[in-house]
């Protein structure tokens, strides 16, 4: 996308809301922005109706700041809390049926490659643990098996938050939740491990307590997906409302998870590693 596409004609410029004008003049479409620049530019995520202290909202803000090319990024999601902020994003976002996001992203990515053979159109799936690990698991895995060049980001709050706190496949074993009245009987579905064996060429497990790591993972994942194949980022995004902790404790909960069961981990194929080194060298040259 050229910034010209959204630049208002002079006659109408004054009629547009300040938010829009800021986005065109100071948004991330013009220059590269990073997570470290948050607060210094007009972000592409606007106000959103998430609960106070929501880890999902924070992760989406970090993701939006880390996109390597927001002007050419398409996000595909699924119903759930993630949708609240994603629909407030100044880029194309599609929300369709529950669990189909990786299949939709496949069709979209392939069609955009047909229509724009000389432009990288980044197709990024952003969905919750229910959408990716439960109802959409087969579609997620198959997009990886097929080596689709899309990035999948799981916002893992370990619960179905939007429908009121039901057990998900990513909930922790033993946790008492709605629909798990005696505690969950089986461990978290090892989607991160599955990503390694299902064709993902790059993957990161991280929590929102490490914002720079989240940003770097998103950026790397999208860049690598352009050239080499599917990539996966799994972000722990605690939910104060359903996990019943005070909203000002979100980062503390995430930090504890990092020590406990959500340690940072990254994997990449040899080609992906080489590609990252190469693209870093190229960006220094520039």
């Amino acid at each position, binding site marked *: *996308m050229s910034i010209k*596409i*959204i630049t208002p004609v002079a006659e109408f410029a004054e009629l547009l809301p300040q938010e829009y004008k800021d986005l065109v003049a100071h948004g991330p479409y013009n220059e590269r922005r990073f997570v470290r620049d948050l607060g210094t530019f007009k972000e592409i995520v606007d106000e959103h*109706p998430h609960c106070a202290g929501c880890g999902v909202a924070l992760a989406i803000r970090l993701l939006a700041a880390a996109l390597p090319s927001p*002007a*050419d*990024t*398409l996000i*595909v999601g699924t119903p759930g809390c993630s949708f*609240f902020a*994603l*629909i407030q*994003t*100044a*880029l*194309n*976002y*599609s*929300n*369709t*049926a529950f669990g*189909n996001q990786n*299949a*939709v*992203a*496949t*069709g*979209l*990515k*392939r*069609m*955009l*490659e*047909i*229509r*724009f053979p000389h432009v990288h*159109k980044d197709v990024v799936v952003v969905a919750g643990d229910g959408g990716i690990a439960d109802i959409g698991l*087969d*579609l997620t895995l*198959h997009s990886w098996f*097929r080596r689709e060049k899309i990035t999948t980001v799981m916002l893992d709050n370990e619960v179905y938050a939007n429908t009121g706190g039901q057990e998900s496949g990513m909930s922790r074993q033993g946790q008492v939740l709605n629909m798990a009245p005696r505690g969950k009987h089986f461990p978290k579905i090892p989607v991160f491990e599955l990503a390694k064996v299902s064709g993902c060429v790059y993957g990161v497990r991280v929590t929102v307590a490490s914002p720079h790591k989240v940003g770097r993972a998103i950026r790397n994942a999208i860049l690598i997906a352009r050239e080499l194949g599917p990539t996966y980022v799994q972000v722990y995004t605690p939910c104060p409302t359903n996990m019943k902790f005070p909203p000002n404790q979100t980062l503390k909960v995430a930090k504890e998870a990092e020590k406990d069961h959500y340690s940072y981990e990254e994997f990449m194929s040899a080609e992906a590693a080489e590609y990252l080194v190469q693209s870093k060298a190229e960006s220094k040259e520039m």
Partner: protein
Amino acid sequence: MAGLQREVDPEYLFWEAPRRQVFITGSEAVAEAVKRANVDMAIAYPITPQSESMHLVGDLYAQGYLRDYYRGENEFAVMAAVHGASLGGGRVFTATSGPGTLRAMEMFPVWTGSRQPIVCAFMCRGVSLPPSIQPENIEMAMLLDVGMLMFHAEDAQDFFDMILKAYAIAEQPDVHLPVGVFVDGFFVTHTRSMVALPPDDLKLPAYDPRRAPVPTFDMETPPIRMVRDPLLNKSNFISYAANASWHQEIAAAAERARKHIRRYMGGLLEVDDPAATIFLAASGTAVSQSREAIKVLKAGGIRVGLIKIKSIRPFPAREIAAATAHADLIVVPEFNIGGWLAREIKASIDNNRRVVGGPRVFGGMTMPTELIVNEVRSALDRSGTKQPGSGARI
């Protein structure tokens, strides 16, 4: 060969280009239509009796007629991927059958709600336990209200023409809705008949996403801030209003399709012998069986007209009411147990006791001509209508 195809006006392709008669199956007719439809991308998943047509579409991809094609992991995923591809601003095709249709069901209203001109061929078959792969079209009843346009082909010629014409109708800016082109599986897909084809070096003009009434999902078409779903955030009157008005718009778009269906398909229905007072009204292969039954009835001195219903959605309610205004009896043979077509017709006309829903066959049974003939004769007996030969059984 694919590279030598020339884009021509739909009108030229449909009516003016010379046609050559070939003896092909219904599945081959699908591929012949896709070959001339300038489709960007097709996605397939196997299910009987649809698979063969998508094998042939895959061969077209190998020959360069399509720019992308792959096998999805299940029908829900295929319909989701077709949705994604259509969001991306290209022309897409897929096909499915019976249980596949139902597995994918959630996506059809999504296509409609997204105003996507996707064309999908449905090769209908039985859906239930005990398992059946046999012809039956009960799945059409389940799709009546998902918002897509629905055309029902009688034979391979219809199937070929309707698929091509479906693109011309679906992509009208004032319509821009998905179209399902339905056929009774096996009877049409797996039998050969003569089909008149225009030259295969001609194709429809490419899909132009700039003519779409909804912005393409490519970060190139403003407004870029968009989500197609009305916001369902918590209680919100705007959400109700947005959703309801969007549904109204989809219903209105389907209504607006009528004029294009008349133009491209010659009407939503066809009537043979409009002056008759007894009619057989049918869609799909039941039309062909009705034609045979009418020959037998005429030979016995009973004059019977035929109403062939081509468009199921939008439904030609006014046309049926007009065609049957002076009718005493309307018999509706169907390849399903529920009798959805008879219900639709009953809901469209006055004095609907004139409508006899039957005969109905299902589970893969054929519909012998005698069944239809006997249904007409029995109905005449019951009503006391005096018709020559109405008392005799064949």
